[in-house]
């Protein structure tokens, strides 16, 4: 300690993702200027993000002006599918990165004509860990948990369940075939996050989509005041 007299400790206490947070805040301001609601949709691969998007577009097409931002590691399959619905869609290829980040979103927002929109839904990369921490400028964080993935996801990925505004339980048409204790799942999720909204849907049959879509309309309205 004595001979290395110049050595010192510099306190910082700065969030590691603060640079991303700053750009997310700018994105948020851009959206707020035109009264647009942006939703960050997160889930494991195959949980039903694209399916829920398609169902949501189908039910809200006449009520809201929507656009979709598709995050995908490499392909454009989901974006192509959405484009068939005649909805503006921007594809972000993350080039291998496992999450979207705020600078990517900023570029995507530049490609949309914002005054024409009420709601932007972002399909994040299929992953339950880092998308939670890389804010985009979203107003709402939504997670899809699908029945075949099992009811123990909240134990394994507490971070996402603590962070989201709503959990959409998808593929409830499979409940008769797969062990998934809905009541226990609900108790655990609300115990972790008492403000969370929980929806039970099947994108296959369309069951439960109406309450989810109504809620989204209501939330979008809050961004327009």
């Amino acid at each position, binding site marked *: 300690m004595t001979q290395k007299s110049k050595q010192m400790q510099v306190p910082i206490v700065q969030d590691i993702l603060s640079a991303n947070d700053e750009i997310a805040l700018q994105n948020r301001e851009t959206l707020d200027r035109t009264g647009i609601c942006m939703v960050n949709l997160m889930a494991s691969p195959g949980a039903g993000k694209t399916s829920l998007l398609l169902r949501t577009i189908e039910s809200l097409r006449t009520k809201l002006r929507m656009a979709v931002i598709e995050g995908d590691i490499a392909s454009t399959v989901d974006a192509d599918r959405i484009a068939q619905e005649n909805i503006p869609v921007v594809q972000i290829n993350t080039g291998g990165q496992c999450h979207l980040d705020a600078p990517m979103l900023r570029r995507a927002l530049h490609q949309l004509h914002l005054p024409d929109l009420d709601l932007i839904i972002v399909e994040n990369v299929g992953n339950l860990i880092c998308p939670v921490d890389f804010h985009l400028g979203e107003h709402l964080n939504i997670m899809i948990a699908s029945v075949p993935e099992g009811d123990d996801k909240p*134990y394994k990925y507490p971070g996402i369940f603590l962070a989201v505004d709503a959990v959409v339980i998808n593929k409830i048409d499979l409940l008769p075939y797969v062990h998934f204790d809905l009541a226990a799942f609900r108790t655990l999720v609300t115990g972790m996050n008492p403000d969370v909204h929980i929806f039970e849907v099947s994108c296959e049959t369309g069951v439960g989509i109406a309450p989810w879509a109504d809620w989204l309309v209501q939330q979008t309205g809050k961004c327009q005041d």
Partner: protein
Amino acid sequence: MHELAITQNILKIALSHAEQAQAIRLTAINLVVGELTGFVDESIQFYFDMLSPGTPAQGARLVIRRVPARLRCRECGEEFALRPLDWKCPRCSAVGGTVLQGREFCIESIEVE
């Protein structure tokens, strides 16, 4: 893969603070990572060793302090350490609770010379 993006952020923040402190060399970076972030593993040292050569942070140690999760029961107010796969209050068995600690994800300090 997100460890790469995260390590880039860590390096950038650390270097800018080292510069402000007019340091010549960065010898260590002290990180605080909460158990509930499910984030960083040891591979960030690997990325760090890849990204830092040629900067004042070359050769620096990354020291990760992991913060265990603590909850407060919303029913009875008991404070308790989270046990994996068990989000129950040890006193009244209510499920869940308010997170008191375990979601940290920051650089606490750097050591420079």
